[in-house]
């Protein structure tokens, strides 16, 4: 009988997922700080002040009832949000003291002491227990950004939290109501913010559902009418230049049943690998939908942080993504410390706002390649996707089903000795979900099948050729860069078949009895080996019209890391059954200046580049996903100084 508890304990421990973390390569990847600029996560020189604005009669929020400096009118949001049932609507109204027809415009403000004008940044929380107020959780960003000359408003949308669905249009619309209020604050002679707000440089930041809401707000900002009820006209047209989505959801609201389209805005999305709420990098969908069409300098960047969760970017939410009982079903042991996760946010969010709202170009390289800020970032692993408005797509694999052509006329694609060559939509970690974006899967095994395991054939390759018209139209030259995104997958094709020797006579076609085939050698016993965790090594080869080729290793531009399996759930086997994949497939963007090919082969002429070849010569076998291949006349500011 005394053994019973011990047996129970053993059985229980067998049901709990052991802590499994991928080998951290940050000591290598983040070993250097090549960006020479002040750390944007450090406090600036401004004195920070705080204030509240709001209805002044909030039943539940004492600060928005008793401490408001500026009063605001309530707004009617009943066309944008409703309770799922009348009873729940009554319950909510009873709790809050107001319905969706009289929503308060409440904000807590951190602002710099000075005359300004200062860029205005709104940050909005996402869904959470509506009785545990989320808006104070961004105080750490408020203190930082205000000290650096931004006005930061943490918007109260707690009254949209809880048990309602499909309300992200309301969340986005509320942000625009706040901007209306700020326009009034700025324009009113008696206001403490009179002429102190830079309304031409507005940033919106949102977390979780709020992360989608900022995209909705930016889309509504340019529309004349509410897409789902055109009896409501819009007249916003604010100077929103920067959007930040923190672990956002996507598709909770779709205007006119279509994914929210966005163009011509700077966009940053960050997401954690161990997100216990939005457990897949769904912000990549919005990232993919952003287009740059007006010739202005815009960029977008997506940063994935290993061991970060959903809530630690908000000090109220903390590490329990599933609520107070999270330790029962979420594995919290692998998370980075809360302060480390917030430090990442300080660096990226502050750097992004400095770059996009204040024009501080020295921070632009951060969003192209995380390796340039090795000293600023918490030591864990990151993946960065990036694109700027100078980019021209050569192949993004979504336009047709012909694998031999690119996205523009004059581009042809060929492959040699590949075991896998197929195009498809890039999946998300969630089941039956994808990024809405396409790529090509390339698998190779350079070993020749047979008993001699050292025998290898010619390295497999994937070749993309561009015509004169493309080069001319895009003005590709020495200042241009080859841009593509790539992610290894877990698949490893088997050895390739030996090439047929066509010079020998086929003896099987001779007359007479068929000779008996020699007995095949016994198949060597398969010895289980640990999965190879070393990064893949491949080369990029460029050839110009004169036939000069230059080859450089991809590892110079970033680590080609094998898939990182993540276990978010505590119960053993739950991740496998709940998700389509344990690893998120996030292609890392590589920006390879064409000048680097010239440096590798001095005779190479970037202006006459005709072929780019991915040569799978450094790793014997593997599979990669390749997407977003293009050339960019990239702003040199995105490159680290020594590469300009």
């Amino acid at each position, binding site marked *: 009988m005394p053994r019973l508890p011990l047996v129970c304990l053993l059985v*229980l421990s067998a*049901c*709990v997922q052991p802590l499994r973390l991928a080998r951290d390569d940050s000591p290598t990847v983040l070993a250097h700080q090549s960006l020479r600029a002040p750390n944007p996560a450090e406090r600036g020189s401004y004195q920070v002040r705080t204030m509240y604005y709001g209805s002044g009669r909030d039943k539940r929020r004492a600060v928005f009832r008793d401490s408001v400096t500026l009063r605001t009118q309530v707004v009617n949001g009943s066309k944008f949000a409703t309770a799922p049932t009348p*009873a729940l609507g009554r319950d909510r109204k009873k709790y809050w003291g107001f319905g969706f027809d009289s929503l308060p415009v409440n904000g807590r403000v951190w602002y710099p002491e000075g005359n300004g004008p200062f860029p205005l940044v709104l940050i909005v929380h996402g869904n959470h227990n509506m009785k545990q107020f989320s808006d104070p959780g961004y105080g750490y960003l408020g203190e930082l950004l205000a000290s650096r000359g931004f006005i930061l408003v943490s918007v109260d949308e707690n009254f949209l939290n809880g048990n309602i669905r499909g309300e992200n249009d309301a969340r986005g619309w509320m942000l625009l109501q706040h901007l209306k209020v700020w326009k009034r604050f700025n324009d009113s002679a008696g206001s403490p913010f009179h002429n102190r707000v830079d309304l031409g440089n507005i940033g919106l930041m949102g977390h979780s559902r709020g992360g989608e809401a900022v995209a909705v707000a930016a889309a509504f900002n340019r529309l004349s009418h509410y897409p789902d009820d055109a009896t409501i006209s819009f007249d916003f047209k604010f100077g929103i230049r920067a959007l930040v989505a923190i672990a956002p959801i996507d598709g909770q609201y779709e205007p006119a049943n279509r994914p929210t389209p966005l163009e011509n805005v700077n966009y940053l999305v960050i997401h954690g690998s161990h997100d216990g709420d939005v457990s897949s990098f769904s912000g990549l969908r919005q990232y993919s939908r952003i287009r740059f069409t007006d010739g202005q300098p815009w960029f977008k960047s997506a940063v994935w942080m290993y061991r970060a969760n959903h809530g630690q970017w908000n000090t109220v939410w903390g590490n329990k993504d599933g609520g*107070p*009982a*999270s*330790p*029962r*079903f979420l594995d919290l042991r692998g998370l980075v410390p809360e302060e480390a996760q917030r430090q990442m946010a300080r660096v990226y969010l502050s750097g992004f706002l400095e770059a996009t709202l204040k024009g501080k170009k020295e921070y632009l390289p951060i969003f192209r390649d995380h390796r340039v800020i090795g000293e600023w970032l918490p030591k864990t692993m990151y993946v960065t996707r990036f694109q700027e408005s100078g980019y021209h797509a050569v192949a993004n694999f979504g336009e047709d089903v012909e694998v031999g052509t690119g996205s523009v006329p004059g581009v042809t694609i060929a492959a040699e000795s590949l075991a896998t060559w197929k195009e498809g939509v890039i999946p998300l970690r969630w089941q039956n979900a994808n990024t809405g974006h396409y790529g090509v899967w390339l698998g190779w095994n350079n070993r020749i099948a047979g008993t001699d395991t050292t025998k290898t054939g010619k390295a497999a390759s994937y070749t993309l050729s561009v015509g004169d018209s493309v080069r001319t139209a895009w003005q590709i030259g020495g200042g241009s860069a080859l841009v593509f995104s790539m992610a290894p997958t877990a698949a490893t094709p088997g050895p390739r078949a030996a090439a047929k020797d066509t010079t020998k006579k086929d003896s099987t076609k001779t007359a007479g009895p068929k000779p008996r085939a020699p007995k095949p050698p016994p198949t060597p016993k398969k010895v289980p080996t640990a999965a190879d965790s070393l990064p893949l090594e491949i080369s990029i080869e460029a050839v110009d019209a004169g036939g000069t080729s230059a080859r450089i290793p991809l590892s110079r531009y970033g680590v080609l890391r094998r898939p990182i399996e993540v276990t978010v*759930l*505590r*119960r053993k086997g*739950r991740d496998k059954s709940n998700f389509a994949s344990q690893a998120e497939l996030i292609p890392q963007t590589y920006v390879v200046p064409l000048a680097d090919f010239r440096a590798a082969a001095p005779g190479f002429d970037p202006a006459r580049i005709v072929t780019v070849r991915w040569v799978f010569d450094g790793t014997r076998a593997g599979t990669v996903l390749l997407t977003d291949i293009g050339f960019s006349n990239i702003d040199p500011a995105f490159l680290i100084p020594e590469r300009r």
Partner: protein
Amino acid sequence: MRRAGTILSALLTLAGAASAQDHDQTPLVLLLPGGTRALGVGNAFVAGRGSEVLFYNPAQMFIIRGTTLSVERFGGASTLGTLSTVGPFGKVYLGAGVQYLDYHKGIGSSFYSLPADLTFRGPTNASSAAATVALAVRWKGVRFGAAGKYVEEHVGDLRDGGLAFDLGAARDIGRGTLGLSVQNIGKGLEILGQPGDLPTRVTLGAALPSILVSSYFDFTGFAAVSRERDGRIVPGAGVELIYQPVEGWTVIGRAGARRVRDLPGRAESPVTLGGSFGLDRLWLDYTFQPYRGPGSAHRIAIRIQ
């Protein structure tokens, strides 16, 4: 609210209507707790969850599907077995259950025994059984249920059987549940000319919302009060401390108390103790009930829900 009060008082009157006649109550199986968990929480299960709620309040079947098999031993003298199953069928929930008690009747003036007698092994073989079918619907946020059952009491070679009916209603109030049931409506039985009334009772009870105590512990409680046919008021209550170390694994400790009949030399203990172990949908329940007199009762159940 006033209308609800009127209905409640009418139901209480119904339950006590025959009290003046002072007959014994039968069948014995309907005087026993219907479920293992229920026994562990002082039989206060009118707002409980699980298939065994079929024996308390058919309206609560609407909450959860499942099947439960339980066995209870009363000392070395008697054995009770129950089987209940509940599940959705279109827009309604259907349930079926069987309760069967095998016991040995002692020598006495009445043919009808009481729960306190069950740990005594008398000279006469006896059994008591009930077979129940039930239906539950939801209307305007309130769950309603009705059950019909065939009941039978055997004492030696003598027997009598008949029909009985239950009615119930339940409603969630916040995160808790309020339940009301009227059980065992029908004509009584008669063995060798000795009439026995059905143990008609009206019960009002509540299941409290689960309260998070810490990251791994929850606490919940149940309470109910019944008015029985003979006019007795029977309160009962119980609590559960729920430990969930990892999703799908649950260990529960529970304790309950209720008013019991105190008979000369023998009685059920008012206090019960129990526990459960759950692995995903599979559960094992156990409850212990001391008896004053010989032996005590142990009840185990296996349930899938």
